[in-house]
């Protein structure tokens, strides 16, 4: 019998509870040295909690963490870094108003002089073929470049274990490929990687082993190369996948929602300006807008919903009527409803009850108001109807929005808008951070709404979602919208290029985008 080297990381019976949830329940996990190990699970399965304990941000309630076979006390991230554990966060841990180099310095515990730090920085960039300007202010960088700062910061530690939390959700397909190359190079050098994702094809392409979490428990370990995506997905969801049913024949009516050369300046220093956006969504059509986060999606949504007014009335047209200068409530009364990306604090008020959240957008269209006073009875009735029709799990219309799970709150928000019978509905990231059951219910509701003759515009970073859901698709990059393509006729490579290819050189990207606009592939 041969003696095996101890695993790089071993978790034994690790548990963690929060008020009302057992986020991790007796987790056992082994990561060998040099292994790329996937941690697979739906949103809310407990992946983030688990890695936060490994990185010392949270303390486990029970269980042990062993590193290279020895019991490890990881009381804070500094202790984790001392062991050689690096982490790249899903929501970056960067400081927007500071330079790249200052951000790097903040992530290192060693006290280096400016010159030593620069030398180290360039050593890592060269070793992994990465590009990054140390003097740039972070807020001027693309999302892909920002992630690179996090990666360089982790690599400077010469890590023995690198944790990557959902790293690809902000990258173009080309950037994902580049990231995978870096990770493979790292693992070849003996560094273990704990790779968190819910995207199955990435795990198949990259990982050696996969541990699947559901409801805070380990439900299985698999070799991604031997499993099918579908079998892993079913392990992850714990049920059979439900297909959305879409009528085979899609018939579109007249244009319902249009923009004409819609241009808007940056709303803030960190925002994106919209340039000459022209689009047309017909009755019964589902129109997808793809793109990497931070390319003007939120700006487009608020220009359509009325949160930002267009420079001219003709820039936004609803059912043939110019509405560009109308405000949110006026547009809503004409039948233009919207669901922004951020659920907490934008699409809903977490501190308010579902009844009050129903009043937030439904008060005029559903006639809760008389003489400036809201009829609480009508609002409650409407909230209950939404809860019933969209099977929202909540204690009732009095429940606080913040107490609902992501999926249930999203179902409530979507239901609140759809049951107002909009002429046109604009939705941003309808299934972001939502469990699979809720996601398919939301997709089905969007399809049903379009079948009743409404125009639907879906903005998403999830290309797979758009390709299954939409009839037509366009790509937004640096505030410009590409030509409209029919789904089924557009290739992933082409969309990837329109999304900006490999980020880092904005001028080249603009050129590329313009070329593609001039000569659609």
């Amino acid at each position, binding site marked *: 019998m041969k003696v095996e080297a101890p695993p790089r990381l071993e978790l034994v019976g690790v548990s963690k509870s929060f008020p009302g949830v057992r986020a991790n329940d007796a987790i056992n996990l082994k990561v060998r040295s040099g292994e790329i190990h996937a941690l697979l699970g739906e949103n809310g399965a407990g992946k983030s909690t688990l890695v936060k304990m490994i990185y*010392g*941000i949270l303390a486990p309630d029970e269980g042990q963490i062993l590193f290279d076979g020895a019991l490890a006390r990881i009381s*804070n*991230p*500094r202790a*984790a*870094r001392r062991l050689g554990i690096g982490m790249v*966060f899903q*929501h*970056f*841990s*960067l*400081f*927007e*108003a*500071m330079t790249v180099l*200052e951000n790097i*310095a*903040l*992530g290192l515990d060693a*006290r280096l002089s400016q010159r030593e730090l620069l030398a180290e920085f360039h050593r890592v960039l060269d070793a992994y073929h990465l590009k990054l300007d140390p003097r740039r202010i972070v807020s001027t960088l693309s999302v892909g470049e920002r992630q690179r700062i996090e990666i360089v910061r982790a690599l400077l530690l010469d890590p023995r274990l690198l944790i990557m939390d959902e790293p690809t959700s902000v990258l173009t397909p080309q950037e994902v490929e580049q990231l995978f190359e870096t990770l493979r190079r790292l693992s070849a050098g003996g560094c273990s990687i704990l790779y968190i994702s819910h995207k199955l094809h990435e795990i198949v392409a990259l990982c050696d082993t996969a541990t699947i979490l559901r409801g805070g428990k380990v439900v299985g370990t698999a070799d991604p190369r031997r499993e099918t995506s579908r079998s892993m997905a079913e392990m992850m969801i714990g049920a059979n996948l439900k297909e959305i049913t879409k009528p085979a024949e899609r018939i579109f009516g007249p244009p319902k929602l249009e923009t004409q050369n819609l241009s808007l300046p940056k709303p*803030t*220093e960190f925002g994106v300006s919209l340039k000459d956006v022209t689009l047309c969504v017909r009755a019964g059509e589902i129109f997808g807008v793809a793109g990497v986060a931070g390319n003007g999606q939120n700006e487009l949504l608020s220009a359509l919903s009325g949160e930002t007014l267009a420079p001219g009335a003709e820039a936004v047209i609803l059912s043939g009527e110019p509405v560009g200068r109308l405000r949110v409530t006026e547009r809503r009364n004409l039948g233009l409803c919207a669901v922004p990306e951020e659920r907490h604090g934008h699409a809903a008020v977490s501190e308010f009850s579902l009844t009050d959240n129903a009043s937030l957008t439904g008060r005029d269209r559903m006639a809760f108001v008389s003489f400036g006073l809201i009829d609480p009875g009508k609002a409650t009735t409407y909230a209950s109807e939404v809860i019933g029709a969209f099977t929202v799990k909540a204690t009732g219309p009095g429940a606080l929005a913040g107490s609902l799970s992501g999926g249930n709150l999203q179902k409530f928000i979507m239901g609140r808008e759809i049951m107002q019978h909009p002429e046109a509905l604009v939705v941003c990231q309808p299934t972001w951070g939502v469990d699979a059951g809720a996601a398919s219910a939301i997709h089905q509701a969007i399809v049903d709404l379009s079948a009743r003759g409404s125009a639907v515009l879906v903005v998403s970073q999830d290309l797979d979602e758009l390709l299954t859901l939409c009839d037509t698709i366009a790509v937004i990059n640096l505030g410009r919208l590409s030509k409209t393509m029919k789904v089924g006729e557009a290739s992933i490579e082409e969309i990837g290029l329109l999304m900006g290819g490999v980020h880092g050189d904005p001028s080249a990207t603009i050129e590329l985008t313009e070329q593609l606009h001039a000569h659609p592939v």
Partner: protein
Amino acid sequence: MTLEFLIDALVTVIGVTTPILLAATGELVVEKSGVLNLGVEGMMLIGAVTGFAVTLTCGDSLGDFAPWFGVIAAGVAGAASSMLFAVLVLTLGSNQVATGLALAIFGIGLSSLVGASYVGMVIAPFNQAFPAWLAEDPIGRVAFGHSPLVYFALIMVIAAGWFLNRTRAGLILRAVGENDISAHSIGYPVLAIRYAAIAFGGAMAGIGGSYFSMVITPMWAEQMTAGRGWIALALVVFSSWRPGRLLVGAYFFGILMTLELYAKASGFSCLPSQFWAAMPYIMAVAVLAVMSARDVAGSEAPACLGRPFMPNS
């Protein structure tokens, strides 16, 4: 006559500027760490009464050293009162605007209560950092004729600039004010850093307050800071959170306040004296308007300013 008048005026400007400069330097560091402490006025008053009381009490036994103890005590008292604020906003996550206001009201009340028994008493003013012969000619007066606190204030502004922009600890403090969540997830003790910054701000406000009761008028009077704590807060906004500009801005307000003194004393102005008394506040509002209009995006303020941070939720 004109030269002497100008020298007099300049010495007065330096004098009236010092307390707001001290308090504003402290507040700048606090705000850089992401906390808005509106209680400056209260902490200044607590410092003023403490400095006065300690100097008076120790005067017999310590002689010339008594004022130094007074200043140190003022700093400690200011820091101690700021801890009341710190526990509330940091550990208990209370609203920073309301809590700062409570500290201001509390400081006004407490200093009046403690100071009631000191009204009417006088101490030797804490001036003369240098031997008197150095300050005989006009240039000497401007350069060497001030209280040690004047030099301390100048040193502290420069030190704050150096600390924030040149040291690693300063970088971390700015990072905490820029993005507390990131700083926490990298592993910096956000709350501990903010506690330290608030204590520093409290000490500086306390020392600034002691300048009123120990240097300007070496006696205690209720609410003797007369709103200078609020001017210090406006000054931090005016400076765009940069120590260099803070220095310039402080002297600008110093000149305004000196004009008020001269207008009252000489009656040379055709405007009522109340106009000059209101002038620093009117100018503070005007300056805020100019500075804030320039920075529409609010990008110069520390991004987390005034936002509560609860690490375990």
